[in-house]
């Protein structure tokens, strides 16, 4: 079975997941992102790379934030951007996902940026494009179900590299709702591929997926134990609906045990950085003092996110 995101030469054809992506491709994306960070400071914040190309933001699940970062990235590359917010319930009644894709292909799309509530949806689209001989159209996964959020994972790696330089001597902790998190899955895949010797996940048993240790992580339930000596703390967002599914009793209890406070952060290395994919629930997974504190790199993450997405789009857009 060929990895559907690589072409026959082993080059990136689509960006669907970081799981199984070779280390040199991960590094190439991070290296390419670096010069894009400078574009934001120019008078004209635009590069001609995707001039004349059409990028369709195909969002089956609402996310103004992610959609906006992709839109900015595509526009800075001079692409024409079309935003489509497709309500899943109305899509379920009528047109199928692949019908929608076929229709947009007929409108000369060059790239799809796909957000979908179902794990694997962008992969399905990529396989469909391949089966119908439309190899010139590229798919970027902007988050699918619990499966993957590769550009978020990449911008997190970029941020870590920016502040810590080298991956091979780090201890990284991922804290919170790993079970429902596509971000955590992409982070784990990238961190292990890039040679981070110790990746930890910290959370209650209800929020850690079965056999998560098989992904190459160490499991901690005690946050204080798990934060000891780490270089990077990656917090995950806790959705309120987790209380309904009997996964957690209350946000208050969660905060008390797994919320990141200055007192718990003090157990990490003194120069540890704190990351969060946003949007944050202050007082649930993270204390405001930490979120706004000197160790937080949450805003740089957002800035790097645009450069990383520009890098991915420009690497895909030429072929």
């Amino acid at each position, binding site marked *: 079975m060929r990895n559907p995101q690589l072409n026959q030469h082993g080059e990136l054809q689509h960006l669907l997941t970081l799981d199984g992506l070779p280390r040199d491709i991960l590094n190439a994306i991070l290296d390419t992102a670096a010069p894009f960070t400078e574009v934001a400071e120019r008078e004209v914040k*635009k*590069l001609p*790379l995707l001039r004349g190309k059409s990028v369709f933001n195909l969002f089956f699940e609402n996310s103004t934030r992610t959609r906006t970062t992709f839109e900015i990235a595509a526009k800075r590359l001079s692409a024409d951007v079309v935003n489509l917010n497709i309500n899943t319930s109305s899509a379920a009644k009528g047109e199928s996902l692949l019908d929608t894709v076929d229709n947009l292909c007929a409108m000369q799309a060059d790239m799809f940026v796909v957000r979908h509530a179902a794990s694997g949806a962008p992969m399905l689209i990529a396989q469909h494009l391949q089966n119908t001989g439309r190899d010139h159209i590229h798919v970027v996964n902007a988050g699918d179900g619990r499966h993957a959020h590769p550009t978020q994972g990449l911008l997190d790696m970029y941020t870590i590299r920016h502040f810590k330089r080298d991956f091979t001597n780090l201890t990284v902790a991922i804290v919170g709702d790993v079970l429902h998190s596509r971000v955590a899955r992409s982070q784990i895949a990238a961190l292990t591929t890039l040679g981070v010797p110790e990746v930890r996940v910290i959370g209650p048993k209800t929020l850690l997926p079965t056999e998560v240790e098989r992904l190459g992580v160490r499991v901690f339930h005690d946050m204080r134990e798990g934060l000891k000596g780490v270089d990077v703390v990656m917090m995950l967002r806790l959705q309120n609906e987790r209380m309904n599914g009997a996964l957690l009793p209350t946000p208050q209890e969660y905060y008390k045990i797994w919320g990141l406070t200055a007192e718990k952060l003090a157990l990490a290395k003194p120069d540890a950085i704190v990351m969060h994919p946003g949007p944050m629930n202050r007082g649930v997974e993270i204390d405001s003092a930490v979120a706004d504190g000197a160790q937080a790199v949450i805003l740089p993450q957002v800035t790097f996110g645009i450069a990383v997405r520009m890098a991915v789009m420009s690497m895909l857009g030429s072929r």
Partner: protein
Amino acid sequence: MKDLDAEALCRQLAEQIRPHVCPATALVGIYTGGLWLAERLHAELGIAQPLGAIDVSFYRDDYASKGLHASPKKTEIPFDVDGAHVILVDDVLYTGRTTRAALNELFDFGRPARVELAVLVDRGGRELPVAARYCAHTLAAPLAREQNLELQRDEAGQFGLKLTQRA
């Protein structure tokens, strides 16, 4: 190209530029050879404006067919481009396409008062209406397409010109 002394050509180029240097003059080197050369000229000519560097990867006209250049470098223009007298510096002038890309990129930073081009060697083979204001050496006969001429810098920082054959 054994007869071409890059160090001597570099000195000649500096002397060509020197009479025209004014306080508004700024140098911008094009990665990689052009930037080495610009660094040398910047010091030798005592240019007041900080040195700029351009990587034209994002502006190349062969992006659609060849894709993105491997690990592009950061473009840095540390001076105010508006009203500046910019001298673009490259090691070898060939088709003119790199110069075109560099000009486009430069204009995304502002509107310079004047842009000139300085090169060490003009190898001929122009495909665009581009000419160098300062040029240390023009080859008598244009090089063949599969030949590649570029500036080298050794560990001691000494320049040399290297001619290679593309497969």
